[in-house]
């Protein structure tokens, strides 16, 4: 079920009414479990069974890890959990990708092998709920979480519908404590949740889908050489689209959870005002970057190893982060590019980090612009469906097609320019703050007008039900 659909509007209204109309906390949790499975099953009912089986297995494995006496057996149970989760992910998401690459490898050594194409349907949000579930056994293994006694609570932690299919990746350790006692609603919490949902939908429906996606799609599907202006505008359109699409979903999720009394952490913190790439990853898809940091980067040795090893660790983490996004080498290159950016930044910091000029306003501004530019270049690989498109785009962006075609209308150019400028301006003005502080400080009439304007634009846009980009991951 999409947040930007009529079905969800009705579904959410019914769930909220029943939820707050029910006194028993147990009954409320049961209601949320049923609602979450209906929400997920509304895409493809059989996949709800897959979700349940993954959850039930991790519940059981979590107990085994906690019960195990020696370090060795704890590790064995953890490996079982990792293997179970990753094999599900591997089969559904990477099955065909692995077979294709195996075929390519065989061909490289002269063996002709034609694997069957597996007709596998990717369960929506499998990458997200696998990580929700995996965080549970990992945290029990690390000794920072006690296993829950209630399977129902764990099912709810993994499948809680606001964050189920496209994040934020909410760790069981963050969510389970909220199920201990019934949440109360603080003053304004419900309405603030509704405002956040309006903001999220506005970002998705109006800014991502209406203002930017059409231009990005046309540019990335154009088969010919493009002018530098059109190429850059296409990439900037996608940079804005993916931010508004994904951040919009996260904000909706946070808002919906708030309406039900739950608190989810921020997943985005004005990333296009980042100064440097480590700063970018502290602001972009925070739940994924912290997941990879805590469960992969640090166990690999983190920064407590020799610099070369630490740099390698960083690249490995970003490589896997790229692969997490999709079963294609273009995503891997996107991840590796970010890994390289992080390593380069680290080297620069070693040499110039303490210099006075490196911390003045102008340098910081230039570094911010350079970060945005480099992030845009990386987005080319994220969006392009193959390397020939990516190469053509990059060539266009760097003047390789002096007589390239112009395919964007003036209206589209204005839309991309205005939305991007406003987005970057908003990110820079809020980079040290947060949306709650901004809303508190703004005059009431501005909050009222902005909320009304967003709601009216959503109605005017009529919420064409484009799926969120991150559903495919």
């Amino acid at each position: 079920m999409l947040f930007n659909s009529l079905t969800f509007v009705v579904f959410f209204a019914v769930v909220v009414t029943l939820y707050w109309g029910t006194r028993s906390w147990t009954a409320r949790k049961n209601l949320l479990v049923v609602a979450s499975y209906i929400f997920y099953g509304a895409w493809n009912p059989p996949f709800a069974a897959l979700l349940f089986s993954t959850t039930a297995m991790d519940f059981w494995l979590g107990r085994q890890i906690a019960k195990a006496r020696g370090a060795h057996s704890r590790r064995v149970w953890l490996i079982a959990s990792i293997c179970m989760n990753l094999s599900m992910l591997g089969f559904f998401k990477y099955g065909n990708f692995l077979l294709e690459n195996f075929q390519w490898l065989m061909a490289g050594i002269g063996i002709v092998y034609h694997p069957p194409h597996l007709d596998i349907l990717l369960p929506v949000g499998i990458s997200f709920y696998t990580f929700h579930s995996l965080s549970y056994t990992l945290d029990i293994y690390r000794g920072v979480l006690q296993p829950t006694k209630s399977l129902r609570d764990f099912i709810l932690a993994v499948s809680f519908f606001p964050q189920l299919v496209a994040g934020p990746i909410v760790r069981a350790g963050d969510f389970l404590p909220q199920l201990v006692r019934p949440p109360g609603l603080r003053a304004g919490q419900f309405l603030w949740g509704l405002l956040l949902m309006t903001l999220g939908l506005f970002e998705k429906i109006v800014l991502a889908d209406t203002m930017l996606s059409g231009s990005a799609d046309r540019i990335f599907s154009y088969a010919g050489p493009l002018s530098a202006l059109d190429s850059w505008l296409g990439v900037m359109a996608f940079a804005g689209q993916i931010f508004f699409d994904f951040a919009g979903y996260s904000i909706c999720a946070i808002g919906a959870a708030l309406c039900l009394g739950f608190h989810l952490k921020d997943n985005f913190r004005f990333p296009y005002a980042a100064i440097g790439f480590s700063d970018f990853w502290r602001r972009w898809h925070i739940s994924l970057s912290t997941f990879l940091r805590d469960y992969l980067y640090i166990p690999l040795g983190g920064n407590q190893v020799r610099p070369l090893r630490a740099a390698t660790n960083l690249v490995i983490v970003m490589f896997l982060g790229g692969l997490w996004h999709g079963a294609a080498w273009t995503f891997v290159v996107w991840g590796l590019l970010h890994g390289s950016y992080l390593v380069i930044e680290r080297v620069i910091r070693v040499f110039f980090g303490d210099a006075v000029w490196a911390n003045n306003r102008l340098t910081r501004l230039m570094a911010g612009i350079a970060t945005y530019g480099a992030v845009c270049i990386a987005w080319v690989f994220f969006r392009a469906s193959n390397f020939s498109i990516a190469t053509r785009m990059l060539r266009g962006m760097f003047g390789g097609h002096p007589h390239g075609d112009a395919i964007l209308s003036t209206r589209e150019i204005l839309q991309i320019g205005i939305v991007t400028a406003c987005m970057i301006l908003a990110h820079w003005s809020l980079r040290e703050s947060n949306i709650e502080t901004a809303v508190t400080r703004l005059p009431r009439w501005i909050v009222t007008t902005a909320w009304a304007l967003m709601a009216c634009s959503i109605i005017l846009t009529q919420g064409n039900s484009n799926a969120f980009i991150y559903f495919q991951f």
Partner: protein
Amino acid sequence: MPSSTSNFKRKLRLPRLFFASPSEIVPRDYERPIPQIPWRGITVVVVLIVIAVAWAWELYCRSIGYAPTLNDNEDLWTMARRNVKPESVVIVGDSRGWYDVDLDELEKGLGKRPVQLSMGGSCAYPVLADLANDKDFHGTIICSVVPRLFLAPPGAPPMDLSEKAVRRYHSQTPAQRVSQYLAMPLEEHVAFLKQEELTLDDLLKRLPIPNRSYAQVPPQLPPYFGTLDRERRARMIEECARPGSELQRRIQQIWLPLFTPPPPPTYIPIEEFIKSMDQAIEQRFHDVATAVQKFRARGGKIVFVRFPVAGELKTLEDRTTPRSQTWDRIMKETNSPGIYYEDFPELSSFNCPEWSHLSAGDSVEFSKRLVPHLRSALEM
């Protein structure tokens, strides 16, 4: 504590050089801040503004000629597709098979109520192929042919439109199905709910902003000129059918660039491009013939129909897609019966107000006159 865990914890405690602000591992008491502002008052004002704006917009849209009607989208098409029974009569193709056919008249004449699967601006082939692959279906297909759409190459908008609908039929989720059922009563009562006309995107597209002289911008699509019911029966609105109306004139001027072949791409040599287009057209003839053969092999019947076209659009179509190279080839390759409106005086005496479709009234009369030809072609 196991050594591995303590080692892990020790590592976590060490200062990190790279990640400046590590998040806490077990944030059990996390609560989001809630802005402390007068929420109730603000919400009441917002609700009042939204209701007032929506009401004003609705009144304005009605005042300039819009009326409530269903949106044609993949979900409505899927609803109709689900109504196809093994022996159904099905209409497929483009907007002429959509506007020019009256389901009541065809039901009277053919004995079965047809299922309307035509779509505006679409190519018939993907739907034809889907019906040919549907082993349960062995009824009758009435296929409208506008050569430029029927022979559109893969990847072109007419093909995308049909393929998207067919895909939705095979993969519609329960949520999409429910959304369609919820949307229909709203669309039947609210005039501004027009997904191809009154959305913010469409309103922005209509802004008179000049383009770069060398920019390759896609042509404009026609504005709202018809209504649609739950059976997907399309009817031209009065304003469009009224002789000399502004709307009629506007639509006529939109058809011409829309039906004019676009310039060849700059990045492929022109000979190569023409060759690839010719190959795509030949492939389409072959694919259509294969689909028709497959469908006929299990007892299905098919008839192709060329619906009326008029004015400068007819001149343009005759010039760019001549009958001998398109219609006649389809007839020959598929060895199927066909009804070309110009061959019959009783079918060619109709006027298309905006050059491409019949008015709602004429579509009834046209369908009445079409029935005997259909019966004869289908050997009924």
